[in-house]
């Protein structure tokens, strides 16, 4: 077996991720490493704000390659995800041919040639001619329709796209693929079968602290500890939407901007909107913040 390209071991990958400011736990590092080594897409699932998208960004950075991102949404189809024809230019071309009196003899291939093709993310990932294969991020795949999922399935199995007017375009080297899902619905089994799977949970206190300090080196450690302690406690309560790492980072930044040295009830209440995104949650915490803070200090 030839040695896998990129990171030489799980430790190496974990180390490189850390160098890029992403603290990956062992489980995540293992699955990213295996996805690279086996050449299989990796499906990341988890609540919003636990750093799924970030994995792809950091991976591209670590591998020193391009990141190509496809954001999924309901109704996404081939013309927005793969390719589309440049109609205005095609029209002009027809007029031009007409002016030269060649319109009647013009063949399909004159109008539908690669020159008139608009490349969308998936086609760009396949046609990429960079030195290293790009990282293809298919973000929030749970938002796309099931029909699009079926199309992805096809694409992920042979990394080729057929444009009827031109022919089949095949990837010289398959891109590194990362899919993410917020799990608003279950992804189809067939698609999951193509992928390695990793559930990303909210981080442990220890890891969250490491992330916070890696991302915001200016933050005093005592404040960082309190921020993490508070957020970790919040995650134990009944909230509509628990804060993710993204919210922790935002909140720490907000507190720094306000010049906080340690958590104080008044300041916490004033900045709750950074941490909690539902009115019900903010209201519940406005009265509960003091208690949580006291509990935290008591240990």
């Amino acid at each position: 077996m030839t040695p896998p390209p990129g990171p030489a071991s799980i430790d190496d990958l974990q180390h490189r991720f850390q160098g890029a400011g992403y603290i990956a736990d062992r489980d995540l590092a293992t699955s990213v490493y295996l996805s690279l080594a086996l050449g299989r897409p990796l499906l990341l699932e988890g609540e919003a704000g636990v750093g799924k998208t970030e994995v792809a960004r950091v991976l591209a950075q670590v591998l020193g390659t391009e990141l190509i991102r496809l954001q999924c949404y309901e109704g996404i189809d081939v013309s927005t995800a793969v390719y589309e024809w440049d109609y205005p230019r095609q029209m002009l071309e027809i007029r031009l041919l007409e002016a030269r009196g060649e319109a009647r003899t013009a063949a399909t291939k004159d109008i539908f040639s690669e020159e008139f093709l608009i490349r969308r993310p998936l086609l760009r990932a396949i046609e990429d001619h960079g030195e290293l294969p790009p990282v293809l991020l298919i973000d929030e795949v749970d938002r796309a329709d099931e029909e699009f999922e079926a199309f992805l399935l096809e694409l992920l199995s042979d990394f080729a796209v057929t444009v009827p007017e031109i022919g089949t375009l095949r990837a010289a080297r398959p891109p590194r693929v990362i899919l993410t899902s917020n799990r608003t619905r279950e992804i189809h089994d067939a698609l999951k079968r193509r992928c390695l799977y990793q559930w990303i949970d909210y981080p442990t206190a220890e890891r969250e602290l490491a992330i916070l300090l890696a991302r915001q080196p200016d933050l005093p450690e005592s404040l960082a500890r309190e921020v993490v302690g508070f957020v970790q406690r919040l995650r134990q309560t009944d909230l509509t939407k628990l804060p993710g790492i993204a919210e922790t980072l935002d909140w720490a930044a907000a507190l720094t901007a306000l010049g906080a040295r340690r958590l104080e009830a008044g300041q916490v209440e004033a900045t709750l909107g950074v941490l909690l995104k539902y009115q019900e949650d903010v209201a519940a915490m406005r009265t509960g913040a003091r208690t949580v803070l006291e509990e935290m200090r008591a240990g």
Partner: protein
Amino acid sequence: MITEISGEALAANAVLFGRLLRRAGLPIDPEQTRTFVRVLELLGVGRKRDVKAAGRTVFVRRREDLAVFDEAFELFWRRRGAPGSLGHKLPRMQQSERRPGALDLSDGLGAAEPRKEPLSVVLPGAASHVELLRQADFGELSGEEERDAMRMLAQLRPRLPRRPSRRQLLGRQGARPALRRMLRRSLATGGQPLTWRWLHRTTRPRPIVLVCDISGSMERYSRFLLRFAHTLARSGAPLEVFVFGTRLTRITRQLRVESGDEALRRVAGTVVDWSGGTRIGESLRELNLRWVRRTVKSGAVVLLISDGWERGDPELLSRETARLQRSCHRLVWLDPLASRAGFEPVTLGLKAALPWVDDFLPCANIASLERLGELLAAKRSAEFRVPSSR
């Protein structure tokens, strides 16, 4: 610690492990096992932590299965020394059988389903029987009528609400010209687009969430309404079903079987608070907290079936109903008592919740359930709307 292990033994172990996971209830295919062999070759088996993480990423495809995997892995790792004896000794990690003493929902239904003949109640000379049954209150049916009503419910083909989709279809009419098609065609006519083709928006079924009260006061109705839920589940609409008495239980999966009797039997095996008290507010709170964003989604119609006999805090109920209404397309409250002559929404629960409800409809007989389908499919249903104080 084992550091050197032959490829053959590795493969054998991976296969055994795959089999163990399948026994434990994970859907494992041979492809996954093959992948796992490659992974073991790559990582070795020296570090338990890594082997476990690798196994999780290869074998598990749903978060719910992680715990099962971990348990199976520990078991396997411990017994790895004696691979020959593995398969037999393992406990089966299946869902527990029906709880003893759980209520059998299909009481008296017998083999109603397998019989294929259409409505045996339609006897010559008794033509109006079906019509009477359609109008009869579920709570007042005799044993025989009950069976017939169940069968009628199974045969309902309700019209379902639809929502606009972003998907576009090619046609002769529409909002946007289908440029690709037209350009292609225009080549035949020297670049002149002679025939116009259009793209138009399509619709798709709107998700439905059914939340059914199964407390004591609803006992006479809940069986029929769950049967109706099963009919809905089979109609192809995206449907989530929950039941509650003192606590909320999700029964979407249980209803996903062909036979209505079987579905009800499964529900009975899952639900623990059958025919007990009612805590609507807390159940809705649970729904709002744990399920709304995953299953209700914006754009869903929520059907809440209850008579509003609330033993909990009416204020909580009011608050949670309001919250639920805000996160769905339309909140419909179905009350089996609403069709009775002289009905007034006086129960504590109803009074608390009604201001936030979009529609308030009866659901005591088959006719009203048919009507419900019509109303949902139509754009507006002002007819039954309770003038709200909101």
